[in-house]
């Protein structure tokens, strides 16, 4: 009868193929389950196992007591045996430290053989060391990647803070010429960002509108002082010139590759358009007006109404909201105004904080 083993007949190594030899080579012990928590050793114990079984003996040992890790495995093993499933159920590896401080990596496996519940206990040895080494290598790579990502994030944040500071400074230039205050433009950005956040916009767009909305009136820099600062009512001609601040602002900001500036251009151009189409510069209506501009209109009007200016007193919030509610018939997007009312406590907090802290830039 020919041999079907993998070794050529004339080159088979001198190896002990008996089962005890095989278990010894695998550094493995075989236990048979006696009852729920008791096992008897069925093979010659490897040396490392003797150190653990010397107190309990080999014939009636509670393995979950000897190896506390197995307490989390026995429930699954029991189910495996009861269902007499074929194949091995591994416990996952764990580390034991022997009395001499040596660490052993062990793994148990449950299996059902010839009507018997069997538990294999193996010293993983080199296999474990190789696994650790491979995982260590992968994790070192992940740590390096995380480090780089964090560095990119940190630098991006720095750039964004600079962008924001530059934007605020630019807007402040126009503020010097009319009656708007620095805190007003900061609040506009924060209110608009709060609206965007409430609508679950992506973080990037929330950041963008916070910077872009305050630039809505930047085109006023191109309006002559005699019109911009005129105390009395503007003539039709003067008003026509005044209205041009929307297009001037858009021209200043457009044609940029920077998304925040493109958004700012859109807001500058459209923030005087009205929901019913009666606004300027193009008289577009409803949702044809970009949402960024519709948001800016609402928050700009709210902030202007509830704060004092040299030419007017502040309205109470109640009066301001009533007036804005009326404006939803013609001027403001009614749905966005509803959202504004829903997050009114957030708006009030911004009002309070930005009044108190004059130089607040957004904290991340």
């Amino acid at each position: 009868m020919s041999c079907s083993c993998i070794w050529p007949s004339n080159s088979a190594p001198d190896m002990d193929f008996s089962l005890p030899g095989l278990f010894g080579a695998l550094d493995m012990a075989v236990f048979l389950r006696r009852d729920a928590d008791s096992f008897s050793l069925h093979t010659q114990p490897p040396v490392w196992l003797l150190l653990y079984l010397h107190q309990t003996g080999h014939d009636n040992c509670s393995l979950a007591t000897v190896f506390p890790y197995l307490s989390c495995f026995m429930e699954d093993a029991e189910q495996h045996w009861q269902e007499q499933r074929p194949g091995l159920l591994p416990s996952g590896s764990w580390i034991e430290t022997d009395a001499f401080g040596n660490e052993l990596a062990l793994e148990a496996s449950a299996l059902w053989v010839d009507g018997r519940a069997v538990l294999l206990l193996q010293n993983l040895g080199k296999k474990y060391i190789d696994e650790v080494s491979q995982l260590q290598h992968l994790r070192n790579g992940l740590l390096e990647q995380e480090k780089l990502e964090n560095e990119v994030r940190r630098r991006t944040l720095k750039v964004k803070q600079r962008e924001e500071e530059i934007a605020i400074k630019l807007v402040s230039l126009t503020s010097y010429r009319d009656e708007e205050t620095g805190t007003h433009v900061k609040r506009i950005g924060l209110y608009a960002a709060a609206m965007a956040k409430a609508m679950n916009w992506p973080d990037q767009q929330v950041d963008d509108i916070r910077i872009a909305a305050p630039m809505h009136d930047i085109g006023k820099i191109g309006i002559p002082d005699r019109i911009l600062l005129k105390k009395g009512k503007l003539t039709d001609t003067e008003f026509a010139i005044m209205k041009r601040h929307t297009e001037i602002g858009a021209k200043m900001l457009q044609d940029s590759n920077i998304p925040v500036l493109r958004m700012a251009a859109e807001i500058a151009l459209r923030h005087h358009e009205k929901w019913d189409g009666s606004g300027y510069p193009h008289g577009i209506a409803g949702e044809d007006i970009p949402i960024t501009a519709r948001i800016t209109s609402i928050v700009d009007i709210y902030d202007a109404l509830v704060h004092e200016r040299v030419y007017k007193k502040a309205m109470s919030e109640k009066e301001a909201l009533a007036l804005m509610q009326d404006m939803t018939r013609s001027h403001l997007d009614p749905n966005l105004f509803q959202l504004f009312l829903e997050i009114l406590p957030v708006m009030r907090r911004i009002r309070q904080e930005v009044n108190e802290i004059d130089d607040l830039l957004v904290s991340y």
Partner: protein
Amino acid sequence: MIQKKICLLGSFSVGKTSLIRRYVDSLFNDRYLTTVGVKIDKKQLQLNGQEMTLMIWDIAGEDAFTSIRTAYLRGMAGYIIVVDGTRPQSLEVALSIHQMVQESAGDLPVVFALNKADLKHQWQIDEEKLLPLRQQGHAVIETSAKWDQGVNELFLHLAKQFGT
């Protein structure tokens, strides 16, 4: 004697093993050696005049390749979730582990360790991000296994929640 099983959970390389080494053996090693599987240590402590043994399960950290087996959590009396203050990602992992544990083991005593306080100048986790945890009544303790800062307090804080 009372015996309680506690688990240390968290992303990989946040310092779980180092915190245990410091607490159990008063040792610290700066070198990062990843844990595969589980290692169990014991520590006895006195609480309100009673002896308590903590069975401390050091469970391999989570990453894209490894996730925690819920079987490890069987019989657990409470757990510590470790966050590395220098790695914002480790907080995200911590929060998802916390949710997973609550779903599989219920509401058990938990303490969060904000580890690597010795590298505080490099921390990238804002207090604002921790606010939801504090608002839920969870303790967040700053620790450093290297400097032996907050380590005893961390384990004691958890043990005190077990009562006797």
